[in-house]
């Protein structure tokens, strides 16, 4: 396990600037989640660390030493790809053993067999070990592919949306499993996801990327409670943060152009009247769609709420987030 440090890394593909001037330190033993929409540079960051791409500028260091001159094999990292994860001509067992049989490792067959069996049982694919990789369901393929990373003990695990193709139950199980591996091995993870629950539950640190720039890096709580911009604020939180003109509720601080309201920023029972448009019962929470003049606001209803569409509810902001004209926090 080791610290990974990116210093002023830039990378362009033709005319597309995939990453510009990204500096990021993944502390030893951290679980860093990268958030951002498609094209923000998340996968490129992983590929640069893995050595599959060379940065145009900047440096990448693992364990304190620059790895720019090293081949992917020499960097001692493991990566789970989003797609095309398994070698189709090999069985599940051979797939799992493949990294251990590499010339970089010097393991005996008995040792390899033991390790493969161990990982297979963790990922609950032990009964499929002798299947061809092509004879698996999508979820099983992805588990084997995670297993291929876990058989080794690399300096960092790079994972590119590894759980995105799994069903909800398996995703929840594997989330717990990855978190356990992180805690038990003290392993370092860099993890790309779109899924907010994955980000909030697994991460020790979250990095938010916007068109190739790292716009904020911090703990999930910091990112959620203290976003630097509307862009970051809308990455986390369900329902998403409501953004309204700053004067929607009356006077705003100087320079404020937008007011950002998460459900906890909306006090119900006093203030301006709003009409209940729609209620969404999600089981653990009830979402409340409100109409206040021309503005739509989404918030949560109290669990014991008896509100119905058409009802009127008074609301007022409570320590909201203020943003300036370019979307930055005041």
């Amino acid at each position, binding site marked *: 396990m080791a610290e990974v440090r990116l210093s002023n890394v830039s990378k362009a593909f033709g005319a597309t600037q995939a990453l510009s001037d990204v500096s990021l330190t993944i502390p030893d033993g951290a679980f860093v989640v990268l958030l951002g929409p498609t094209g923000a540079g998340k996968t490129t960051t992983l590929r640069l660390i893995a050595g599959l791409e060379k940065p145009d500028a900047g440096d990448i260091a693992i364990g304190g030493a620059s790895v720019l001159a090293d081949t992917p094999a020499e*960097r001692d990292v493991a990566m789970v790809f989003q*797609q095309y994860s398994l070698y189709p001509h090999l069985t599940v067992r051979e797939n799992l053993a493949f990294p251990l049989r590499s010339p970089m490792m010097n393991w005996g067959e008995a040792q390899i067999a033991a390790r493969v069996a161990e990982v297979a049982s963790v990922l609950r694919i032990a009964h499929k070990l002798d299947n061809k990789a092509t004879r698996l369901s999508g979820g099983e393929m992805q588990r084997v592919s995670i297993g291929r990373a876990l058989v*080794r003990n690399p300096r960092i695990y790079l994972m590119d949306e590894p759980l995105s193709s799994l069903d909800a139950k398996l995703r929840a199980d594997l989330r717990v499993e990855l978190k356990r591996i992180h805690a038990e091995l003290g392993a370092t993870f860099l993890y790309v996801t779109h899924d907010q629950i994955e980000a909030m539950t697994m991460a020790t640190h979250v990095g938010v990327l916007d068109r190739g720039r790292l716009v904020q890096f911090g703990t999930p709580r910091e990112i959620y409670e203290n976003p630097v911009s509307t862009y970051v604020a809308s990455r986390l939180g369900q329902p998403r943060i409501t953004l309204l003109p700053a004067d929607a509720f009356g006077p705003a601080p100087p320079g404020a152009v937008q007011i950002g309201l998460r459900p906890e920023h909306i006090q119900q029972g006093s203030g301006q009247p709003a009409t209940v448009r729609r209620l969404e019962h999600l089981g653990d929470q009830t979402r409340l769609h409100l109409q206040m003049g021309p503005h739509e606001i989404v918030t949560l209803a109290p669990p014991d709420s008896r509100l119905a569409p058409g009802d009127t509810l008074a609301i007022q902001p409570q320590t909201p987030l203020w943003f300036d004209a370019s979307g930055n926090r005041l």
Partner: protein
Amino acid sequence: MSSYSVTEPSARSKSVAAVLVVLYAVITLLPLLWIISTSFKTGPDSISYPPKAIFSPTVEGYVNLFTNRTRATTEQLATMPPPANFAEEIVRKRNEVITGPSRFGERFLNSVIIGFGSTFLSIMLGTLAAYAFSRFKVPLKDDLLFFILSTRMMPPIAVAIPIFLMYRTLGLSDTHLGMILLYTGVNISLAVWLLKGFIDEIPREYEEAALIDGYTRFQAFRQVVLPQAATGIASTAIFCLIFAWNEYAFAVLLTSGNAQTAPPFIPTIIGVGGQDWPAVAAGATLFLLPVMIFTILLRKHLLRGITFGAVRK
């Protein structure tokens, strides 16, 4: 109640297809059957009219193919020791004696060396070149690929004279190496283009995964790309072998005493001691076998795309 499927052909269209396939197979196999049956006929049987479908088979044709013989009188034969083997026995019944082996064996061996040698070389160079074109930034890639393809745009025999002169100067005329290089040169464009198509189909992620898993580029190529390209390599190899094996014009032009292959040799049998059709048919039958065996051995690769279904979309 019978189930109905939109993708499964109906029993009726299946049987129509089966009849058509069998019919086509009979039409294509008939000449082969003719050649093979002629090779087991006696000389008179082979030219009898109407042709004999039922005859008593003999290996005379094969004996003639592999031997040189001379006529002997009954008195001469009587003074000779008894025949040492079945071939001499057959020959003596026709008042002939074996003077030595014919050159067919060595011509056949030449064909094997040159055919398989050039196929191996074409596939080896073709796979490496195709991999490079498929995966790396090669300067002037499109122009190079077009240039490689352009060597196929004229019939190879159109450059026969320059090649003849070149080979004479370089001392490659009538050598195995010369013929291997020539057939490789003709086949390589086909090999590069076909194999590039197959390798393009293999997602790069497999190699990238192998690189991260601790393998070098070449090891990843060998252990991950090659097995998945096996189907493409097998079919390309069959195409290359068939061309090199059957090639006639260059073989006539460039080989004679040393590296002559079977195709130019077989017709020369006709001239030796009358029109010996069974021997010609025997030569043609034996000549068919290697390509046939090679194709049958690789048939499962031709039929089955081994990577089918492996890609998670």
